[in-house]
């Protein structure tokens, strides 16, 4: 800034040039002969006969009387701060002359005794005469008019300490916001105290006025001219202020000196991920780690359904994953063709040791359930090796499922096995639609004897666990365990290929399947009824039901008999018209009555107290109205009829065994759920119903109110009069 300032100054200053003497003595001449210098170095060129030329530097002052510069001479004068160096050109026709200031341009410190420094900001103001001499005779003269300012920037002490913000009550901080440079004049900043009057003259008509100059007068709301019609408040224009902007409500406001610490974190960050740690004892949910310190991974479903191939496995957390992927070549998707030999990974067992996975291979004979379109693939017999090389077929060993079993004990793994299901599949490459392959992955953590039948709770049933049923073994008195079943329809939902699934505790369910019947089936309704009933009865292959989730299979008292409700519908043969059968028991109802029977460590235990099964009779009729009259004539036309079974869990409230009377139902004075002005909420703020404040707080406030009430009563008129009467009567 300072150099720019100097040039600026020189442009403004009117410099009285000394009259120049042209020396004709020599044949050399300076080009340029006169230089105005604002920098410590100036360069001129001496041209002509320059061989053997020497230079003399004098600081010259014009004569006070004549204003003329003194005559140049080759005699050495007193030492000066200037130094001349010269450089002869190659052909010796000219010489480059450099005049350099040897004095330091640093501004002197106030209390130091340095001499090689500037006492004032305007450091050097002098005329320097450089005389070129040849054999003691003056050949040429260069006049340098120097006005050089001290360097203001480099002598500032840069301190790492934060600026101390003074108390704003006494010392305004923002008095001159444009004063950016400490110890130097900032151009156009007229409030800068470092600018002397000479400098201010230069830019006095260009002063910063607004924010940077410190003259801030924002428009305030109350000003009549500040409001426009759309956003004006409703008191406008009756109560606005006519004033100049200088008379502002912001006058007297000052910055309190509070400093805001910037605590904003970066918007986008990549956090450092901790790698897997080889554990010293696994806990539930810890990732299982390989001996190499990596996560042990099994493909699992995530995000929106598809499988992630490198998903870590958590300790003691079982899962089943089905992964659907396009059937492509092994090169395109190597994970389809995993070899069993590559599955024997070594895992950290949690005790500092290792455990090796034991792979077991299994070959499947049926691709149903694995391939979307079984007709376009061929399963090869394992003995059929080598693979046939038919052009339209592409054969490969495909890895279909991996079922991991982790045998654990406490905090460590004892053994890990994997059942690897493989098939040699040949795909018809000319198949019209792409073939989707379903692969299954599972992990199961087992402890102890894996063949023991799992419990469904201890002691009460857990929600979502299978309901345990059983049959009494004649002779031994032992109970064979089984489950209550429901249909699990697959494919087109026909009963012929429906599977069954276990009844789960507390899950009310309804499932069913479809029977295909023709007109011939309706000829013998009794047979139809019996066969349907037998089909449904097969879902309940038990006579006993376990009361609790851990019922002992040798203790008959922990089991209940299943009650079969008789169907009380009497069927008259006359009801059975051609093409229809009445009262077909097509719906099996299983009612399971449950009750809360105590708690273990705060967890409510539920047990089964009764099971009833029954059938709902339905009229089945061939639909041959409208255009489908053939159905009632032709035996080969099949119609579907639904057969269903449902499970309902009915909770018996053990507390109020007797049903509520009409009075109890209608009289809601004490039932705050049904009545907004019930008696228990008479003193609502003091009851537990009130949740607006903490109970202790509301109690304290209530007591304060009571105190005031009693005080008012004691000091009020009846007590006053009583006290007066008392006083009068005693004294």
């Amino acid at each position, binding site marked *: 800034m300072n150099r720019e300032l100097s040039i600026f100054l020189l442009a403004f200053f009117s410099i009285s040039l000394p009259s120049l003497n042209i020396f004709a003595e020599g044949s050399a001449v300076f080009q340029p002969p006169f230089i105005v210098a604002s920098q410590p170095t100036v360069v001129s060129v001496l041209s002509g006969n320059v061989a053997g030329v020497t230079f003399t530097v004098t600081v010259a002052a014009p004569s006070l009387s004549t204003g003329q510069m003194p005559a140049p001479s080759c005699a050495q004068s007193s030492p000066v701060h200037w130094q001349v160096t010269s450089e002869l050109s190659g052909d010796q026709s000219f010489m480059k002359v450099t005049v350099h200031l040897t004095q330091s341009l640093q501004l002197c410190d106030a209390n130091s005794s340095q001499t090689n420094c500037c006492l004032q900001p305007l450091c050097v103001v002098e005329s320097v005469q450089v005389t070129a001499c040849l054999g003691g005779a003056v050949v040429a003269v260069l006049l340098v008019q120097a006005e050089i300012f001290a360097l203001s920037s480099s002598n500032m002490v840069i301190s790492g300490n934060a600026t101390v913000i003074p108390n704003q009550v006494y010392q305004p901080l923002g008095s001159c916001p444009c004063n950016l440079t400490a110890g130097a004049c900032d151009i156009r900043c007229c409030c800068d105290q470092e600018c002397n009057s000479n400098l201010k003259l230069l830019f006095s008509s260009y002063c910063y006025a607004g924010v940077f100059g410190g003259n801030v007068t924002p428009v305030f709301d109350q000003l009549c001219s500040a409001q426009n019609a759309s956003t004006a408040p409703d008191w406008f224009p009756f109560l606005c202020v006519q004033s100049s902007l200088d008379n502002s409500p912001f006058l007297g406001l000052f910055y309190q000196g509070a400093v805001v610490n910037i605590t904003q974190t970066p918007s986008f960050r990549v956090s450092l991920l901790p790698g897997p740690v080889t554990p010293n004892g696994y806990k539930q949910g810890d990732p299982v780690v390989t001996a190499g310190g990596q996560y042990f991974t099994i493909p699992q479903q995530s995000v929106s*359904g598809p499988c992630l191939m490198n998903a870590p496995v958590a300790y003691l957390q079982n899962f089943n994953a089905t992964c*659907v992927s396009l059937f492509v070549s092994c090169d395109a998707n190597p994970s389809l063709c995993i070899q069993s030999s590559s599955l024997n990974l070594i895992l950290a067992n949690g005790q500092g040791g290792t455990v090796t996975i034991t792979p077991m291979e299994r070959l499947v004979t049926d691709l149903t*359930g694995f391939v979307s379109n079984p007709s376009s693939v061929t399963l090869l017999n394992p003995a059929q090796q080598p693979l046939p090389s038919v052009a339209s077929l592409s054969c490969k060993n495909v890895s279909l499922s991996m079922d991991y079993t982790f045998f654990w004990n406490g905090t460590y793994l004892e053994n890990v096995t994997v059942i690897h299901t493989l098939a040699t599949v040949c795909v018809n490459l000319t198949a019209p639609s792409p073939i989707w392959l379903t692969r299954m992955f599972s992990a199961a953590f087992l402890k102890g004897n894996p063949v023991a039948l799992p419990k469904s709770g201890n002691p009460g049933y857990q*929600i979502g666990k299978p309901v345990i049923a059983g049959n009494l073994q004649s002779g031994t008195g032992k109970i064979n365990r089984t489950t209550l079943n429901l249909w*699990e329809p697959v494919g087109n939902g026909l009963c012929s290929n429906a599977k069954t699934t276990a009844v789960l505790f507390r899950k009310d*369910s309804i499932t069913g399947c479809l029977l295909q019947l023709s007109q011939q089936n309706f000829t013998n309704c009794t047979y139809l009824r019996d066969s349907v009933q037998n089909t449904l009865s097969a879902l309940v292959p038990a006579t006993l039901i376990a009361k609790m989730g851990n019922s002992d299979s040798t203790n008959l008292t922990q089991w209940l008999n299943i009650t079969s409700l008789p169907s009380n519908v009497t069927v008259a043969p006359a009801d059975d018209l051609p093409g229809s059968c009445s009262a077909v028991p097509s719906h099996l109802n299983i009612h399971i009555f449950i009750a809360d029977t105590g708690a273990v460590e705060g967890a409510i235990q539920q047990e089964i107290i009764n099971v009833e099964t029954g059938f709902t009779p339905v009229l089945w009729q061939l639909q041959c109205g409208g255009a489908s009259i053939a159905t009632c004539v032709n035996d080969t036309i099949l119609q579907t009829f*639904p057969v269903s079974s449902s499970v309902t869990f009915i909770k018996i409230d053990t507390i109020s065994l007797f049903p509520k009377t009409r009075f109890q139902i209608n009289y809601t004075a004490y039932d705050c759920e049904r009545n907004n002005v019930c008696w228990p909420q008479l003193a609502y703020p003091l009851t537990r119903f009130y949740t607006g404040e903490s109970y202790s707080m509301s109690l304290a406030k209530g007591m304060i109110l009571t105190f005031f009430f009693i005080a008012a009563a004691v000091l009020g008129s009846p007590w006053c009069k009583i006290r007066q009467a008392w006083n009068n009567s005693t004294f």
Partner: protein
Amino acid sequence: MAIYEVYSHPALLRYKTSICTKATLFLLIVLGLTYIPPLLVTYKSQGFWIKLSTYEEQPVVKFQYQILMIATTSINGDYVAWSTFQNLNNLLGDSLRIPSVSVMEVDKNQDGKYDEMTFKLQLPLQSTEQVYSVNLILGFSYSLFRMSTFVMQSMAYIQHSSPLPGSLLYVNGDLKLQQRQPLNHRGLDTRYNVSVINGSSPFASAYDLTNIIGNYQERNVSTVLSWPSPLWMTGRAANSPFVISAVIRYPVEIITYPFQNFFNLFVCMLYATCCYVLFKSLAK
């Protein structure tokens, strides 16, 4: 010189007039001006009649085990459907596909009212079928007791369609009360205690979704399933069913009802009078 009171007596001035005079008129005007302008000014400034009030209640919601499910199984528009209504199942013919449904209603805070329901429907599909869209209607009974006893049968409607064949539709939302008019403050209200779907009707029009939803939306008080966007999972494994998994919560509702200004005023005045009479007689 000091002044002292010698004697004092109260003076009573009586100004009398007959009824039909200017003085009577003036008196009436003054009397009117004393009471009416403050009333008008107060009323026009803010108003002082409460017109609508609210109360908070968790409804007693019970799943009615009424289900109507329609799933599109090809891009050509083939569909399978199932309902808990026998008449509709008979109408469906070959499109009938019985799913496996399991339902559990949970009372989380043990206050005697169910707080949420988990619903799972597994629809078996053939290998050539894929599910592209689902319509599902679930029937609930919905009761409120705190002010008026309000009983209705309502529904939750779930619909989603996607160009991608799905494996799972996951819905997790609230069964919210939708009030178009305030409820009564007392009494029994069974206007809408009718089934959303008339299951006893053998006619196809009773199961037309436009009729069901149209009739339901006619109701001034209804429920709506408020849910964020459903999750539509793709990648159904071979031979595995299409699954609709829903969690429907029964939240506490803010119910509006017309505030009974006169009833309240009347009750307050009655109580005040009774108390006054009682204390007066006790004092005597």
